[in-house]
């Protein structure tokens, strides 16, 4: 277990874990009330792996996750209002209602998403790290995925390539003991997951994912090493999912006793107890933190309720970035004027300003302009 940080830092960690917990509890209620659709995967029980790892990053670093990523958006600073609005499928959702629970995104905070394809985010993470390297910045990418994802072909392909190209990426396998209803030992021949990258040239580390201090300490070292050595690292965060895989899960694959045993190690409860014991906070403040989280979640729900649904006319927006070559789509039915711009391109046929990746090319230009000093240049900008 790592050392206790400054009191206000510790408070922020507790507050953020509490916010994630309260947010997801409410999301579950909203799902039961059919305010939220699709699949809803909660991280309840895994909050320390989220906060402990994300806090080891700089603002200029990238975080990329899976379909279980409400907490990853929140920890990066995406307002709960926009995360809840996404769950509600509203225009103010952090993916504008297009992605839902499994596909959260916030480019401005370098939260590079939420991906519904198990293992699909690993190559993308390596590509982001390649880009950071190419731009001669010091940025590091943290890529989280589950124990089950470590059996996907992209795991071996990506770790080999990242090691070969010395990409600045930390792979974090969130080992919550199950891939859906399949226990670790029933899906992976090697269950000591920190070792699963060794044959691929990626050294491993392990942290107690129920302990935010240990998670932070290990991830901080991992991020540091990756930033300096330009070599990937695989970190196994050992944790447990308190809830079902998704909302519709009878959980017949595990015993109530097993769940109860892990719940005794609730990362928020234990960290809160520690802070009180160490006099970093008192019970009153602990209360206040929880009340603030609840209040913020109330606000998020209210905001989401008020946010409008996307307009039917917006269905085709952003299928393509429009320009003089791609002016829109045409209807299969209406002959004649079958070219209907999904968002009208301007006179010159240039895109209408919604060009994506906006800030990044600029930052790239800086870095490239800075040439060899690109690293520092980018560092300043972070």
């Amino acid at each position, binding site marked *: 277990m790592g050392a206790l940080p400054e009191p206000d830092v510790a408070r922020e960690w507790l507050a953020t874990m509490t916010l994630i917990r309260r947010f997801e509890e409410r999301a579950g209620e909203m799902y039961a009330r059919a305010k939220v659709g699709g699949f809803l995967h909660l991280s309840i029980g895994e909050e320390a792996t989220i906060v402990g790892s994300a806090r080891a990053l700089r603002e200029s670093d990238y975080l990329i996750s899976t379909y279980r990523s409400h907490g990853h958006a929140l920890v990066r600073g995406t307002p709960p209002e926009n995360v809840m609005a996404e769950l509600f499928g509203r225009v103010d959702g952090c993916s504008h209602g297009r992605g839902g629970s499994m596909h959260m995104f916030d480019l401005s905070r370098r939260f590079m998403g939420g991906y519904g394809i198990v293992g699909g985010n690993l190559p993308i993470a390596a590509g982001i790290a390649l880009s950071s390297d190419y731009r001669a910045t010091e940025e590091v990418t943290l890529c989280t995925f589950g124990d089950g994802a470590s059996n996907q072909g992209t795991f071996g392909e990506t770790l080999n390539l990242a090691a070969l190209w010395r990409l600045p990426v930390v792979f974090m396998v969130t080992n919550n003991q199950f891939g859906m209803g*399949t226990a670790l030992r029933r899906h992976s021949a090697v269950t000591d997951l920190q070792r699963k990258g060794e044959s691929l040239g990626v050294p491993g580390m392990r942290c107690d994912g129920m302990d935010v201090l240990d998670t932070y300490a290990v991830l901080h070292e991992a991020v540091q090493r990756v930033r300096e050595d330009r070599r990937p690292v695989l970190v196994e965060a050992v944790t447990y999912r308190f809830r079902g895989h998704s909302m519709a899960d009878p959980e017949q694959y595990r015993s109530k006793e097993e769940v109860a045993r892990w719940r005794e190690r609730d990362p928020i409860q234990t960290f809160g107890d520690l802070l009180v014991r160490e006099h970093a906070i008192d019970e009153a403040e602990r209360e206040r933190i929880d009340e603030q989280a609840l209040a913020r979640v109330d606000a998020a729900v209210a905001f989401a309720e008020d946010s409008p649904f996307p307009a039917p006319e917006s269905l*085709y927006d952003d299928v393509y970035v429009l320009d003089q070559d791609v002016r829109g*789509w045409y209807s299969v039915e209406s002959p004649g004027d079958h070219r209907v711009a999904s968002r009208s391109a301007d006179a010159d046929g240039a895109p209408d300003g919604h060009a994506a990746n906006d800030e990044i090319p600029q930052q790239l230009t800086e870095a490239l302009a800075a040439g060899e000093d690109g690293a520092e240049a980018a560092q300043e900008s972070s």
Partner: protein
Amino acid sequence: MAEMRYREALGAALREELRRDERVMLMGEDIGVFGGAFKVTEGLLEEFGERRVRDTPISENTIVGVGVGAAMTGLRPVVELMTINFALLAFDQIVNHAAHIHYMFGGQASVPLVVRMPQGAGHQLGPTHSHCLEALFLHVPGLLVAVPSTPADAKGLLKSAIRNENPVIFIEHESLYGVRGEVPDDEDHLVGFGRARVAREGSDVTIVGVSRMALTAERAADRLAQEHQVEAEVIDPRTLRPLDLDTILASVARTNRCVIVEEGWPHGGVGANLAALIAEQAFDDLDAPVQRVTGADVPMPYSKPLEDIAYPHEPQIIRAALSVLGVSAPEAGAPSARAGGA
């Protein structure tokens, strides 16, 4: 006859074939202890044990490839993929291997493999879990492709698929799992491939509905009769490879008008393929161009109101039917639901 759900009919087909033929075995992610993401395989691990009902790691391409190798050497594996989008991870084993091995090696080995997967929108699963991709499989010689829309067809076609010597892509629909219907009890009741089902007879217009859209087309046909005195013939092709073009052509020869309804993307879709075949082979029978009603040309959005208009419903089908009949059509419910690609 017994009434059961589409899900139960599929489970019954698997159970009966597992009992009938020792060579039949199942593989898939969470099909055993968990009972299947959509509960189709519930209870089968308990009855047949881990040798014949296997939970697999999350490795789609390899699971299908293991099925190919097992099928080449005497087993009759049935692989479940959780959602059709994930089949894209296994596309190499499905197309470059399963589909082509029999031909590529001069007919020495066959690949009696069934790959089952659900497709379709309606549950807000968003852009990585909701598509209808039957057209991608339909394109590939060597594959058989089934798209059952009723419990009876689901059971009869799955049993035929398991007994067939060729690789079969068996496409279920998430929104159909809970649908009830009459299913023959006879354990040897099979539904043959390449035999379309005339779901409703009619003489004014032929409506071909693919997968779940066969049911939507039937509902639209009922409203066409009630509200517009139009008698539509509704045809469910049931399998896309082989395709029973004869039944469709015979119907079009009587109605002279045709609408094709599919949930998938319009460009290079099932409807385009059928429209081209019908226009080629029944050109003189057609009094109006074949009309397609398709899913919108977009990744399936999560937000409910957008998802709703991104795939066809009765109003678009009614509108298309009336327009091929030259009757002025009521306003389209969803313009999008018939829009095409960039």
